[in-house]
């Protein structure tokens, strides 16, 4: 038997949650109401004279009479706080206000450090959030069996703070991993993230000290619970910090840092094992303390214990394998001699870096010590020639889904699978007692979609804008237009940028640009269009003449168009085969790659069309007029749009119209 209980989370996520602003204003109003109520009550009580007999007539609520304010008249505020603590609804209003502040604080941190969150980060946050709520709910009501209001509020405060720090750490971890995927991360991004991590670390350290205070003054059991949780947080955070520092150190180094892999490995191992054992004893403590055998909570905790135990076992096994590999490697494969290194001029085939020291395999192939080790951990053959190196090396499966219990851990070990959007807890009751049911609690994350959609609409809007611009300037590669649009966010501004020569088109892209036109034997070639544009931009009175001269040239050129096409094709061919240079700037690399792709596609399209034209007997000379008209229509549109703008822009659009008319006249004369 197996049934799926979708946690209320699912419903909650589908509910239209109020916007942040609505929530904040609601909280402020509630807080205002509560303070007003408290203020009024304090006044009423203070003004009430017990000797006065008109008490009954005033209709003073009976219960208020019994309240004696702890402070004097002068300390009005403290009295108000006292009243608020007595009234249940006031307490919840205060709690709500605290949450509101926490959310605002979180937003502030997000804006300062992270900026826009990525989809995957949001998803992890949600995952963690619901997971946390689920377990802490079980803890408060299942294990601690909290009854009184005061205790609930205290536990709530503790877990909210803890959860907040946990989520921030998770966010930092995700962001760190993301940043380490890119070589071109600005320094300040690292600095911001690292300082946030250090602040979290410091805060959790303070929290831990606070736990000791609790331990001394209140109860050792509570201390153990609190300390275990803050210790887990500290470990998680410290792990990210250490990994981060190793990563930054490595990035700043040229070449290979041989022992890096070892540092990373041992950091991971130590942190994993320590936090697994802390988590394990924490859960064991819960189970024993709660005295809750055979309740729902105990089942969940038992499952968690089992999972943690398997995780621990798996980790230890993996480590044994690692040690074995290292030992075997060191005993079987000697380090390469200086002579070997000199003879071998190749780089290490695994990391493609130079080898200053290396290990030599029996087959004669050389690799870095660390590169070879990480390969041998998963396979036992030479990467280059596939010679089997040992028969005994036990292959540690790379398949991550090995243990049967899905991950429920809060700890740093949580392997996150970015592909799945579901988080589920599976409970197989029949493993314990035959009549127990099996069930899984599944939290489905449907909220993933809106974010993606938003992103999609954003890009499609840009696409549309780019198409509009490209209709006017077909010779400018779309990538270049997109880039400018991303900055300007306006079709008009981008068009102006092009007209005034503020957009630089990569020279190679210009060579390829004319082909869209050449395909249909249109008369304006790319290069002439650009020169028209540049002449327009210069403030010369001969605006009419220069473009016409250029047009003359281009028209002559198109007469021998087939020859021209062949020429440019050769140019392109040589371009795609020899490749470009490898720029140091990431944006330049990107735009070059984009224009290369664009070129390849254009070239393929033209070839395809040529081939088919040849097959069908080439009869398509009447295509050009409509093309010109669409362009002119666009220009007219731009004209009418920009006429409302300043006079300077009026001047520009007038020139555009002039250019347009001239082009059309020329064309007509040509066809006559």
């Amino acid at each position, binding site marked *: 038997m197996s049934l799926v209980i979708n946690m209320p989370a699912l419903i909650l996520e589908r509910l239209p949650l109020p916007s942040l602003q609505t929530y904040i204003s609601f909280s402020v109003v509630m807080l205002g109401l509560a303070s007003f109520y408290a203020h009024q009550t304090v006044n009423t009580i203070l003004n009430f004279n017990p000797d006065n007999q008109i008490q009954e007539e005033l209709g003073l609520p009976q219960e208020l009479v019994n309240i004696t304010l702890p402070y004097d008249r002068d300390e009005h505020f403290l009295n108000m706080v006292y009243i608020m603590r007595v009234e249940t609804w006031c307490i919840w209003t205060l709690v709500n206000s605290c949450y509101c502040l926490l959310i605002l604080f979180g937003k502030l941190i997000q804006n300062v450090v992270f900026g826009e969150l990525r989809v995957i980060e949001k998803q992890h946050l949600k995952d963690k959030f619901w997971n946390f709520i689920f377990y802490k709910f079980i803890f408060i009501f299942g294990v601690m069996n909290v009854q009184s209001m005061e205790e609930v509020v205290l536990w709530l405060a503790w877990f909210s703070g803890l959860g907040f720090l946990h989520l921030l750490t998770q966010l930092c971890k995700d962001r760190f*991993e*993301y940043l*380490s*995927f*890119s*070589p*071109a991360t600005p320094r300040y991004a690292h600095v911001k993230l690292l300082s946030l991590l250090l602040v979290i670390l410091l805060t959790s350290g303070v929290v831990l000290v606070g736990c000791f205070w609790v331990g001394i003054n209140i109860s050792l059991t509570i201390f153990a619970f609190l300390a275990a949780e803050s210790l887990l947080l500290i470990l998680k955070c410290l792990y990210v910090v250490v990994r981060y520092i190793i*990563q930054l150190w*490595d*990035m700043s180094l040229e070449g*290979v840092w041989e022992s*890096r*892999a070892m540092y*990373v490995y041992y950091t991971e191992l130590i942190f994993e094992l320590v936090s697994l054992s802390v988590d394990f004893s924490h859960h064991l403590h819960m189970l024993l303390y709660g005295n809750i055998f055979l309740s729902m909570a105990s089942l969940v905790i038992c499952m968690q214990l089992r999972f943690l135990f398997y995780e621990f076992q798996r980790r230890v096994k993996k480590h044994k394998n690692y040690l074995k590999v290292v030992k075997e490697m060191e005993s079987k494969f000697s380090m390469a001699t200086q002579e070997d290194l000199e003879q071998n001029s190749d780089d290490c*085939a*695994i*990391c*493609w*870096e130079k080898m200053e020291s290396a290990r030599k395999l029996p087959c004669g192939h050389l690799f870095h010590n660390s*590169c070879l080790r*990480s*390969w041998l951990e*998963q*396979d036992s*053959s030479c*990467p*280059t020639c*596939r010679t089997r190196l040992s028969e005994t090396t036990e*292959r540690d*499966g*790379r*398949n991550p889904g090995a243990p049967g219990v899905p991950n429920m851990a809060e700890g740093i070990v949580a392997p996150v699978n970015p592909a799945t959007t579901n988080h589920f807890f599976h409970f197989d009751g029949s493993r314990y007692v035959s009549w127990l049911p099996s069930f899984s609690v599944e939290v489905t994350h449907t909220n993933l979609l809106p974010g993606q959609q938003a992103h999609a609409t954003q890009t499609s809007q840009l696409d549309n804008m780019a198409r509009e611009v490209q209709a006017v300037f077909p010779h400018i590669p779309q990538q270049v237009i997109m880039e400018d649009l991303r900055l300007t966010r306006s079709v008009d501004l981008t068009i102006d940028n092009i007209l005034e020569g503020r957009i630089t088109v990569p020279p190679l892209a210009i060579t390829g640009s004319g082909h869209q036109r050449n395909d249909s034997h249109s008369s304006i070639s790319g290069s002439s269009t650009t020169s028209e544009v540049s002449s327009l931009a210069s403030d010369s009175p001969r605006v009419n003449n220069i473009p016409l001269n250029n047009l003359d040239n281009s028209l002559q050129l198109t007469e021998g168009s087939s020859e021209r096409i062949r020429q440019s094709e050769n140019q392109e061919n040589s371009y*795609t*085969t020899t*490749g*470009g*240079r*490898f720029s140091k700037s*990431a944006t330049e*690399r*990107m735009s*070059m*790659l984009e224009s*290369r*792709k664009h070129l*390849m*596609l254009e070239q*393929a*399209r033209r*070839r*395809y*069309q040529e*081939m088919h034209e040849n097959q069908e007997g080439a009869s398509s000379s009447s295509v050009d007029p409509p093309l010109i008209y669409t362009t002119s229509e666009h220009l007219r549109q731009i004209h009418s749009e920009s006429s409302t703008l300043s006079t300077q822009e009026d001047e520009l659009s007038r020139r555009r119209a002039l250019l347009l008319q001239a082009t059309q006249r020329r064309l007509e004369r040509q066809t006559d």
Partner: protein
Amino acid sequence: MAGSALKRLMAEYKQLTLNPPEGIIAGPVDEENFFEWEALIMGPQDTCFEGGVFPARLTFPPDYPLGPPKMKFSCDIFHPNIYPDGRVCISILHAPGDDPMGYETSAERWSPVQSVEKILLSVVSMLAEPNDESAANVDAAKTWRDDRKGFEEIAKVTVRKSLGL
């Protein structure tokens, strides 16, 4: 692991930019994430895929080059060794441990000495010569074996579509 993977991917990107093999362009989709690449592959000459330009996505694991990337065509392509959803099924993309088809010797499978360039070249030769023994798309394998003309017709449509014409 991401650090050494990043360095290696950078080196491969550089090599592919300076010395691109005929009819192949590849690079990161966005340099903010170097582990997601896009490649354009030209259909090999004198085959039914000639003239097409096929875009594909490559997704690298954080421990690259110890593990192979995943490759998926982002256009429709009807081919015996390409799953209907676009995933490419060739032995070079399989980790040494797993062998879903049971046909490959480990010598053909992934090893860190392979590279993006070698993968893409294998894909080009796969386009030229489908391997219908380990079919990922059974329909395509059948059509290729029994109805070569029909296969070529479909390929022609694919080529046309890939050019956006």
